[in-house]
């Protein structure tokens, strides 16, 4: 790799961290929107339970099914919340910790040819780019999932509440999986950042 490649790696890492920073705000907004939409859905379902006379006369177990789905959805929202909080906290930590490191490495590379050479040779820097880009992508993907889930909640009728509960359960599984991934990737990112910092300190 040349010096140009080293600068390009640093630039790509900066872009990836900018993405993570942008994702944090969008993910938070989408999550709040999802919570609002799901709570409104639960409100409509409760209204249906109070006011429906037609379907409960034909399908005697429908009110029970709807009530059960309300409880399931309520429980899934409670299950989702800590996972989302952890992902947001992890992404914020990544942004907070990498900014000074990035500044330090850029400055060191600017001043010392040996550092430029060492950074270009180190796979740690490129690894950083990969993990940061993946963290940002994961946050962006979840943002899209939350928005779609909010839109789906808005369109759900009381009769399809059990189906919506199934969709929300899949989303909760995805969030659980994302919690694990963000933790793993962040741990790797921190390890590689330490390595890159050690390289940047070479003179």
């Amino acid at each position, binding site marked *: 790799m040349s010096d140009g490649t080293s600068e390009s790696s640093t630039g790509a890492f900066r872009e990836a961290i900018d*993405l993570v920073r942008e994702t944090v705000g969008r993910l938070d907004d989408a999550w709040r929107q999802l919570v609002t939409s799901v709570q409104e859905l639960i409100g409509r379902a409760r209204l249906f339970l109070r006011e429906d006379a*037609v379907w409960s006369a034909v399908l005697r177990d429908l009110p029970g099914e709807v009530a059960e789905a309300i409880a399931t959805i309520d429980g899934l929202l409670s299950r989702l919340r800590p996972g989302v909080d952890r992902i947001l906290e992890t992404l914020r930590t990544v942004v907070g910790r990498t900014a000074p490191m990035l500044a330090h490495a850029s400055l060191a590379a600017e001043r010392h040819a040996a550092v430029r050479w060492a950074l270009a040779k180190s796979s740690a820097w490129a690894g950083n780019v990969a993990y940061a*880009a993946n963290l940002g992508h994961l946050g962006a993907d979840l943002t899209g999932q939350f928005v779609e889930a909010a839109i789906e909640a808005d*369109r759900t009728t009381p*009769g399809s509440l059990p189906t919506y509960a199934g969709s929300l359960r899949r989303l909760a599984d995805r969030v659980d999986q994302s919690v694990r991934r963000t933790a793993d990737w962040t741990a790797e990112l921190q390890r590689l950042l330490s390595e890159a910092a050690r390289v940047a300190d070479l003179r």
Partner: protein
Amino acid sequence: MSSSAHAPRKADVPLDSDARLADARRFVSDVGSSLDHTQRISGPDRTGTAYAVVDSVGRFVDIGLRPGWWPALGPEGVAAGLLEALESARMKAALVPLIVRRNGRPPRSRSEPLDETLGLPPPGAADFLDAARGRIAEAYRLIDDAGQRMREQQTTRVITGPRGLFRLYVRGGRIESAEAGPQRPTATDTDRLVADARDTLTQLARESGGALEEWRR
């Protein structure tokens, strides 16, 4: 669909005479005997003079009025009647899995969309940085698309039929209410009124398609 300041009054019909009750009973019996009947699902309003048709997942197909709608619903109640019919049809579509389960048939299984491998080429590869930048660009596209859909979801708007006889109040893809207007329909406006209702609902269905189905899968 919910009532709001724009929602016209609903017809006052006792439960025994509610067209939805007899229709619901027939539907439960039909679904129990044959699933083929569920590909196109129609639903009435409480007076039985408005009807709507949806597909098996509740997407709008058609809407209409039967003779007698004017005395039963009138210009004040026709929009609410049409929406109630659509709500009935969608409720029936939504309840098919429940009815099928009651009858001991297994629900359709869905694939689990959990796999999301985010692999990039190895850091030493020549195309690594391009791939990483591609991943970043794709993430921005996802964020922008989500942001646009979120703004649409939060915006309330009105879809008015080209003949000026029917309009929908919509937030995101959800119908908040409907009304006959801005022109007041008369008893002889049946075809034009129905055409307007069909056009507005078709427009809404067209705008709402696509990405939502992705999430459902």
